[in-house]
């Protein structure tokens, strides 16, 4: 679905992405893993067009991503713990996004509002809500327009176990329904539960990309966490 070739991005002196090659397969859940500041968020933002690459090429269903924003109507994005405007309520934010984005015929996916039990919170100003509750609103917005591709940056951060479970179920059902997901998380067991593909980002390059199963076979480890750790240690040794 997404084809990334030799992507490079520099912020001032820091070369965040050196040369990233990665294919995101349609209908799969791809986990982007890597140490802090490895460029995971930058990569996600580049796919969304929020960040412009210095070099390389990014195609979405064969079409080169340049200035045309139309392809984003097929993407739902959950940014990392965003701060929304102070006085806005959840309902107003949902109404605004619907106003900006939805075509008249579209049915909105409001399932997460019910599952999170979020309805009573949506009439309160967002700034008065707890971080976890805001993260629930964030998740609702990403799924609202029933997109083909969901880009979720640390989706379960700040969520309690129940809410986290609700969101993971939603992702699993979306996967079963043929949607494509790209996620990051610091919790490897969570990624292992949800994802079937993994891309390991280190030093601005993709060090491994493929099925989690293959990564485990290659490193002869039983868990994703150990497999990733094993690659990191072997790279340090080299």
């Amino acid at each position, binding site marked *: 679905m997404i084809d990334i070739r030799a992507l490079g991005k520099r912020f001032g002196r820091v070369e965040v992405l050196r040369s990233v090659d990665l294919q995101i397969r349609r209908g799969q859940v791809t986990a982007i893993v890597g140490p802090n500041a490895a460029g995971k968020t930058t990569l996600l933002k580049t796919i969304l067009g929020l960040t412009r690459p210095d070099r390389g090429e990014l195609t979405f269903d064969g079409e080169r991503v340049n200035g045309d*924003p139309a*392809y*984003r*109507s097929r993407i739902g994005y959950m940014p990392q713990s965003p*701060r929304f405007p102070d*006085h806005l309520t959840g309902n107003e934010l949902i109404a605004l996004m619907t106003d900006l*984005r939805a075509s008249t015929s579209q049915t909105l996916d409001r399932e997460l509002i019910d599952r999170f039990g979020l309805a009573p919170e949506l009439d309160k100003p967002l700034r008065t809500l707890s971080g976890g509750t805001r993260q629930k609103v964030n998740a609702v917005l990403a799924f609202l327009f029933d997109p083909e591709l969901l880009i979720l940056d640390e989706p379960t951060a700040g969520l309690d176990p129940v809410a986290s479970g609700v969101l993971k179920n939603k992702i699993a059902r979306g996967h079963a329904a043929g949607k494509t997901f790209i996620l990051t998380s610091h919790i490897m067991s969570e990624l292992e539960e949800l994802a079937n593909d993994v891309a390991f980002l280190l030093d601005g390059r993709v060090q491994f990309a493929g099925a989690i199963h293959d990564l485990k076979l290659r490193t002869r480890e039983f868990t994703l966490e150990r497999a990733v750790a094993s690659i990191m240690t072997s790279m340090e040794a080299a």
Partner: protein
Amino acid sequence: MTALTTALKVVKFELSDLARSRWLLAYVLSIAIATDALLRFNGADQRAVLGLVNVVLLIVPLVAVIFGSMHLYARRDFIELLLAQPLRRRHIFIGLYLGLTIPVGVGMVVGIAVPAAWHGAWTGSLVGPLATLLTVSLALTAVFVALAFCIAVRCEDKLRGLAIAMAVWMAFAVLYDGAVLLLGSMFADASVERPMLAAMLANPVDLARVVMLLQLDISALLGYTGAVLKSAVGSAQGLVLAIVALSLWVAVPLWLGGRSFVRKDF
């Protein structure tokens, strides 16, 4: 989706959010109190309007440039969310700009017009000067919000951005006339009218002051550059020149800011 509808939707949203902003309320109330005090103690005459001109020429640019840049920094995450939607960046930028300029401008108009009406100042010879004052203040609001957006988009660091915004205000509203006057007196022997005219066009606050004083026909608070313009060109010509220059003062920073906004990495 057309440009206009995207921008208007963002504007509509900004209006509903800013209507609940305490900052904006405090701004409107301060202006209203100042207007009320000036009209109360001077009576509804030209002196009161002159006093108001002085207040407005300092406060309106200050609030617009500081509020404008802070607003854009506070909107950072929200802008990111908007940019992730199938919308064009330029349309979002225009929506954000109008969405701030309109409420701040309208707030200022209400803050002046309502107390003026209360004191019965909207009659006879004061209608013209008051209407000009409101127009000029709207223009200054538009100019300084545009400058603020230009600064906030181009400067990633919030503190640095605010410092630059503050410096821009200081330069235009406070230091500029002094510097021009100093240069003028240094070259007092030469003919300084043309450079003075250029100097005035290069400062939106001076421009606003001149437009106002051409209207009021009082030279007491003219400032050096204003005095030159008044003698150099007739009222009508000067007015047209000032309007063109003020429009450029909105258009150029907005264009620069918009260009950076379109190219920026979020």
